[in-house]
């Protein structure tokens, strides 16, 4: 396996605040990597740096052998990185179908081909009964689904999922896990931020733990849960 995403010495400063401090890890093709950490650990900041919403203060992001550190969000999307937002950013005045269609146009120039692709993605994400609804009228769970659908419709090689499980009930969570596994089977690599430990432990091949901007641990879910430092960071024990 070769790495699809390499983050090298990523540092991001907002004025005096160091949100990401010298983070290095990589994501292999075809795996699901969970990115966990307490609130304020810098997970979303790292996502924004990868997807191009802002650029790193120093360090490098390499996607598929190409340096994307200074690239704009739409260029990164064109290269094959799809992302969802922690707070769903759906196009509220447009219908669900149009929301996904706009994303599908990323790879398909013609409207009719894009429409076919849109229908497939919508069916996969279980949104088929809502296609005529305005995205603004959806509930939180449906909006998060729509976020995933929009990211998928751009036909990414790597999918960045930012807390797509937060606020979901047990049944909804099972459906979402199911969806993530289907996405993996279709050959898309996933890097996901997740607070719900049940999900992280079940679906992730590897877990990366961040705390106050630093990389704390990296490994399989079992390794990470037995790591003393991780337990301390989460449960507030003594750190040395």
């Amino acid at each position, binding site marked *: 396996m070769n790495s699809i995403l390499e983050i090298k010495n990523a540092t991001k400063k907002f004025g005096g605040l160091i949100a990401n401090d010298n983070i290095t890890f990589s994501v292999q093709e075809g795996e699901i990597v969970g990115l966990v950490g307490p609130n304020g650990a810098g997970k979303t900041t790292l996502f924004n740096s990868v997807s191009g919403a802002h650029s790193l203060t120093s360090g490098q992001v390499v996607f598929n052998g190409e340096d994307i550190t200074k690239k704009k969000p*739409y260029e990164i999307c064109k290269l094959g990185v*799809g992302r969802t937002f922690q707070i769903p950013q759906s*196009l509220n*005045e447009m219908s669900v179908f149009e929301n996904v269609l*706009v994303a599908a146009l990323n790879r398909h120039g013609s409207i009719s081909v894009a429409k076919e692709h849109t229908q497939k993605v919508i069916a996969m994400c279980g949104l088929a009964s809502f*296609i005529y609804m305005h995205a603004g009228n959806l509930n939180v769970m449906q909006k998060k689904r729509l976020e995933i659908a*929009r*990211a998928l419709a*751009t036909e990414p090689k790597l999918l960045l999922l930012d807390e797509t499980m937060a606020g979901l009930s047990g049944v909804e969570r099972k459906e979402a896990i199911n969806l993530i596994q289907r996405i993996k089977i279709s050959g898309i690599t996933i890097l996901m931020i997740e607070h719900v430990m049940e999900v992280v432990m079940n679906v992730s091949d590897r877990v990366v733990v961040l705390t106050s901007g630093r990389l704390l641990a990296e490994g399989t879910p079992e390794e990470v849960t037995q790591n003393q430092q991780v337990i301390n960071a989460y449960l507030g024990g003594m750190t040395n």
Partner: protein
Amino acid sequence: MKNYIEANSHFIIKFLASLLVAILLPLFIKTPFPLHVMILICIWAIMGMGWNFIGGYAGQVSNGHALFYGIGAYACGIGMKNFNASPWITMWVGVIISIGVAFVLGAPLLRLKGHYFALATMAIAECGRIIFLNWNYVGGATGVDFLNKAEPGWYTLQFTSKYPYYYIFLTFVVLILLLTKGLDKSKFGYYLRAIKANEDSAQSVGINTSRYKLLAFMLSAGVVSLAGSLYANYLQYIDPSIVMPLNVSMMICLVTVMGGIGTVIGPVIGAIVLTVISEYTRATFSSISGFDLFIYGALIIIIVLFLPNGLISLFRRKQKIRILTPLEMEERMR
């Protein structure tokens, strides 16, 4: 093609019916004033549709489109007066200049968001007006009078009767309406709507937002410039206070917003209603100065209060929140 006609049969029928009315109506008009109103409707419809690309579809509210209106008008005026060039050519020169100006101005201006963009465009248009006001080559404050220089005819686009003007302008309205209809459900149209809805989100699904905004700005500048050229040829006299004042910029927004922002037919409806109200209140209440504007304002407030989505919502069934049943889903997915 067949699919397209089926999907748009509603639009095609309405379009042909209203086109027929628009063509036949002048034949029953014997006095010049109603025809003058109809000509103005055509001009405002073109302007509204032009502004609609950037203000309606892309959601970037520009208050400076009088600048492009003026450029279009002056291109024809100066072309006729100084070079004796046919407006049929100079109107396209005006369009090219406007698109060029929009390209140069758009790159920095479109970085601004919301109110700041509206204010900046307004300031730029005012600068343009003051430049034309003090520019001797284009006649300064006295303007350009190009009536005497030309003989009436197709070459000079000057006619003694109002009928040819009406039909020429109507042709342009139809062409631009069809252009809007074509772009409405195209990649370009969807991308502009996505930018209007949420720019960050649009970027994240691969849309080069600054490029598409700039394209929309240039397109709308070109169309508005065309309206300016046509108006100049109808009036045969232009000066900066006629073609470049702030209220022209405002009227363009008003026409589109009243009619239905970001819709194909909205600006045309807005142009019809607003022009009729404004011209007829002026004619009716000419004895009491200012009363026509009072009535005009009151009517606008009423329209905005009861139809916040524009006059087009009168013709549209309200879209319900609709969830498909499994059967309907299957039908659609087939």
